[in-house]
């Protein structure tokens, strides 16, 4: 925590709602985008973001000033996401696959890798690839999707992810490995998208 953040947290702990509002505004975009990546639902993301900040404000008296505020906030968001996945009825894999299929008639596998800019057809292919990846992420177990977002999108270190998920760093590594393997398998089996690596 920087000095300003420490002051804001201290003031908010004393009941200064305006100080907490400044803190919330600091983290708002980051928390919203993370929850959007996890839920793929803008309304749910906003709802969970509000829930995260409300719980954070209520829980501030228990926050230890020596801890990292953003890791603590991520942890509250993690709980909100877990509760949401329990409440939500998971969509069927077939529906997800339909979402991700290219609208055009051709069923060519999606290419991966850098491509020369400028060709509109390439732009369409890239967007289709990204759409497939989004659908594949959604098809993953929530725990896999979450750890991939925390690592690849949020850029949290392994110790930070371990603190957010309350697991050991070794578990973070093995879960990340399993999540990547699962994502690769879904991309290949459902969308014909080969990311490379060894067979199996």
């Amino acid at each position, binding site marked *: 925590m920087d000095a300003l953040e420490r002051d804001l947290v201290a003031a908010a702990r004393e009941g200064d709602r305006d100080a907490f509002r400044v803190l919330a505004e600091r983290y708002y975009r980051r928390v919203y985008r993370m929850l959007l990546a996890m839920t793929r639902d803008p309304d749910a993301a906003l709802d969970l973001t*509000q829930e995260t900040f*409300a719980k954070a404000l209520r829980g501030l008296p228990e926050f230890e000033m020596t801890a990292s505020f953003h890791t603590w906030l991520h942890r509250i968001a993690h709980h909100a996401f877990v509760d949401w996945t329990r409440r939500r009825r998971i969509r069927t894999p077939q529906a997800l696959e339909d979402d991700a299929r290219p609208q055009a008639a051709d069923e060519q596998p999606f290419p991966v890798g850098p491509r020369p800019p400028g060709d509109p057809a390439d732009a369409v292919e890239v967007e289709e690839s990204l759409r497939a990846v989004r659908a594949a992420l959604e098809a993953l177990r929530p725990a896999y999707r979450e750890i991939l977002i925390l690592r690849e999108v949020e850029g949290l270190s392994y110790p930070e992810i371990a603190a957010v998920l309350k697991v050991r760093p070794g578990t973070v590594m*093995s879960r990340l490995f399993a999540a990547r393997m699962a994502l690769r398998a879904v991309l290949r089996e459902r969308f014909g998208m080969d*990311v490379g*690596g060894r067979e199996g």
Partner: protein
Amino acid sequence: MWFRGIRRRKAMLEADGVGTPDPARAGDVRMFRDLSRLVRDAAVPDATAVPPFDECWAGVERRLREPEPEAGTALRGLRGLLERRPVLVLAPVGAMVLAAVIGVLWWTRPALPSNQCFVDSYDVESGTVLIDQDPDRPERPTVIWHEADSQEEEG
């Protein structure tokens, strides 16, 4: 740069740049980099519209005005459920008791020979990727890829 085998942290740092490339793992490294890039690009595009903060804060204020759930509410609901549908309450309770008994029996079982082994280890903050681990075949080695932060940025 990647290595085959186990190295002490000091040896790894000293060997930086003189290790033997392992072509067998090059595909794995590329795959992880591709997957990382795809997830980053696909998860939340930069152009994604974020609702105004005031809209979010209004919802936060509304939630804060709502009373916190009372601790007794769940207990009252459970009592009502027990009266209406006792099997829905008693079945999980029975399952928990059975699980507890099995747990005690498992905990007090005769100790098996340990299959633990100890390897050199090193601590890193980031840049470590678990490349290969087969929980069903614990005798197989675990492969870990570590790259310096500067290399990770390039990926």
